[in-house]
């Protein structure tokens, strides 16, 4: 196991979404399952936001020394059985579960969200879209909480424009679980007026009760450049970069 690289790398201008003036480039793992297809975008976005992304293959039993983990979008293991159901048993996911149990920050995007739900690291389940159609478009999200570690760059009530692209994003929780989520303030982003998949109570993003694991259907990694319509995704990915930096710089 190598030590986290925290040395200076000159030449990269500071990017929006980063509050720290530190030049350290925190390592953030991007887990690659067979069928993950947003790896390159996640990698690029993390790089732009000042991180040093490291790809971790699903068969790897250990994570390298990283400060955060991103589970990217795609169709891990072909989405066979249920989306995310097979990926949850990969060796890398056991390592991710240990990392999360140790307080490490984990962000699941789209298929990554589905994997986290199937793995029991996040509450709830994602079902086929109400329309049965694959949706691929920008949506507006309303920030419900900004006092959570992975939304620290946002403000409550803020509207974020971030694209969705999924066939199974209809979030479901039974009445008892929904009550727990509301009581614990674990619903942190909702679709604003335009629910693309029929998800319960317009839920787009939830966190675990500890707040270090977060999953969302929209794709922040596709929204880090105004040229592509929005850079609001930087606020979310920028937060995990910051948390990773803090974790790696914190005295052991």
């Amino acid at each position: 196991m190598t030590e986290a690289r925290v040395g200076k790398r000159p030449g990269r201008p500071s990017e929006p979404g980063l509050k720290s003036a530190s030049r350290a480039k925190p390592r953030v793992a991007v887990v690659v399952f067979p069928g993950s297809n947003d790896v390159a975008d996640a990698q690029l976005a993390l790089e732009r936001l000042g991180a040093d992304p490291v790809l971790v293959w699903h068969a790897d039993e250990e994570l390298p020394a990283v400060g955060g983990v991103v589970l990217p979008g795609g169709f891990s293991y072909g989405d066979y059985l249920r989306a995310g159901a097979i990926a949850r048993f990969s060796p890398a996911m056991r390592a991710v579960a240990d990392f999360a149990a140790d307080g490490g920050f984990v962000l699941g995007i789209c298929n990554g969200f589905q994997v986290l739900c199937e793995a029991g690291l996040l509450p709830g389940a994602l079902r086929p879209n109400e329309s049965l159609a694959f949706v691929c478009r920008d949506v507006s999200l309303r920030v419900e909480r900004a006092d959570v570690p992975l939304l620290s760059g946002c403000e409550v009530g803020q509207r974020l424009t971030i694209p969705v692209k999924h066939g199974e994003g209809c979030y479901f929780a039974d009445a008892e679980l929904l009550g727990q989520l509301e009581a614990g303030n674990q619903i942190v982003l909702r679709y604003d007026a335009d629910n693309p998949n029929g998800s319960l109570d317009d839920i787009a993003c939830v966190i675990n009760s500890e707040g270090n694991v977060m999953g969302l259907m929209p794709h922040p990694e596709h929204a880090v450049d105004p040229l592509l319509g929005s850079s609001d995704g930087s606020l979310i990915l920028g937060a995990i970069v910051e948390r990773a930096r803090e974790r790696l710089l914190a005295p052991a």
Partner: protein
Amino acid sequence: MKATVLVRPKPGILDPQGKAVEASLRHLGFAVDDARIGRLVDLEVDASDPEQARAEVERMCAELLANPLIESYEIELTEET
């Protein structure tokens, strides 16, 4: 020993596939009030004792074949002849 697992969306869970099939059946003129679509898994279980086989399949359902939040399941065992 052969085992068949039937996995169904729980009552109250939105089943858009079932809705689409129901609408198509009505379109064809069938008097259908509801259609729900589940999944059938045929298994060949390496166990001679039905009790042991059932216990194994129960574990398979709990760990992988069904998501208890949204799906229910039934297990049927058939002794090979």
